[in-house]
């Protein structure tokens, strides 16, 4: 362990000394204290940070390495290949010129390499790459930004359509089993209802709504004219008018000015007639269970 640390420290030492030399403004090319020559990689060639000054061009600016390469063409060729491999963006084949579409001709899309194909660093023959591009299919159209509507029939099995047999509707279409399997038209009906798309989630069972269809409401004016009426009790408007007038007479006979409301509770049904304003009378009738609030408000429950 300690030996490994010593080796690591020896490797780091020249770098630290080089950094110290740069920071202290030591002259370039000064050898370290150990007297060992710097390898070319660690040789200081300029400031480590900051904008790099443009290197001068021309034969005078060539260093020793370039001069050596110029003298030996074989090494120059090898170095050039290595340089092209290390910079793959230079090796990409140039795209065919994208000309504007002429009238009557559809612009060809720019071919793309499939995702599974590994990127090639050096393309030896760009013409081969152009030849390998598949011809443009009719489905490949230039992207115009138009969104196409996808029909639901695409998901139906081809076998069922080919045989002409009945097509099974999905289980989540809200139809019973026998109706899903035996559809005479053979066309699957797409369910338009909202449903949970998460698999395995049971459909929420909503509590059954109360059946208020048996409750009748009649709204009358103070003169007995029918304003509104809803419900199955057709006798309610006349009864409400009569009860309202008779209750007013009862109130006056007992020394009161008016009768605000009359609530009569039977064994199963309720009749309530009350003033709903200065000029409106409302009559309500219905089952006791559905008008329990009215009974509680009148003090009958």
């Amino acid at each position: 362990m300690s030996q490994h640390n010593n080796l690591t420290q020896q490797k780091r030492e020249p770098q630290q000394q080089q950094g110290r030399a740069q920071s202290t403004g030591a002259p370039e090319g000064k050898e370290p204290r150990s007297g060992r020559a710097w390898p070319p990689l660690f040789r200081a060639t300029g400031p480590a940070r900051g904008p790099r000054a443009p290197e001068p061009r021309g034969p005078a600016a060539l260093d020793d390495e370039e001069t050596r390469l110029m003298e030996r063409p074989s090494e120059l060729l090898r170095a050039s290949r290595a340089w092209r491999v290390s910079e793959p963006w230079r090796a990409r084949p140039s795209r065919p010129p994208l000309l504007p579409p002429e009238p009557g001709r559809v612009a060809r899309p720019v071919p793309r390499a499939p995702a599974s194909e590994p990127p090639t660093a050096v393309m030896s023959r760009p013409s081969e790459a152009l030849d390998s591009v598949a011809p443009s299919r009719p489905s490949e159209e230039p992207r115009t930004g138009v969104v196409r509507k996808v029909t639901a029939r695409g998901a139906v099995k081809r076998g069922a359509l080919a045989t002409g047999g009945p097509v099974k509707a999905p289980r989540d279409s809200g139809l019973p089993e026998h109706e899903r399997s035996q559809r005479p038209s053979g066309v699957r009906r797409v369910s338009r209802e909202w449903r949970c798309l998460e698999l395995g989630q049971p459909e929420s069972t909503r509590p059954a709504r109360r059946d208020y269809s048996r409750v009748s409401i009649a709204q009358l004016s103070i003169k007995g004219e029918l304003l509104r009426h809803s419900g199955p009790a057709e006798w309610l408007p006349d009864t409400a008018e009569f009860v309202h007038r008779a209750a007013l007479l009862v109130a006056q006979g007992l020394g009161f000015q008016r009768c605000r409301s009359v609530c009569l509770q039977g064994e199963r049904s309720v009749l309530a007639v009350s003033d709903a304003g200065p000029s409106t009378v409302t009559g309500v009738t219905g089952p006791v269970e559905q008008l329990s609030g009215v009974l509680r408000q009148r003090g009958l429950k």
Partner: protein
Amino acid sequence: MIVQRMLEILHDVQGVLGSFVVAREGELLVRSMPEQFERAELELTASRVARVLQCSSANGVAPQDGVFDFGEGKLWVREFVRGYLCVLCSAGVDMKSLRLTARLVARGLPAQL
């Protein structure tokens, strides 16, 4: 006389002003009301009350309990075998006590008045 005593039980409930008994046909049978209510006027009122209840019965709502709210007062109606027991009370009466007491009195009223 027993009927009169039973109607006076209702006065134990705070807010009760008086009571009377009406036959199903509208006839005034017994009354325990303050003196300010004349008999003729009360007979007419009793017949109107019976008519309202008969109208309701004719339309399928045979009333067992009923309330006439006059704002400043109330008229509580309870059905019994012979007819209807009517209790006149103020607006601030305890409806729960009145309901229980009226049911007991109506149950104790004899069939033959």
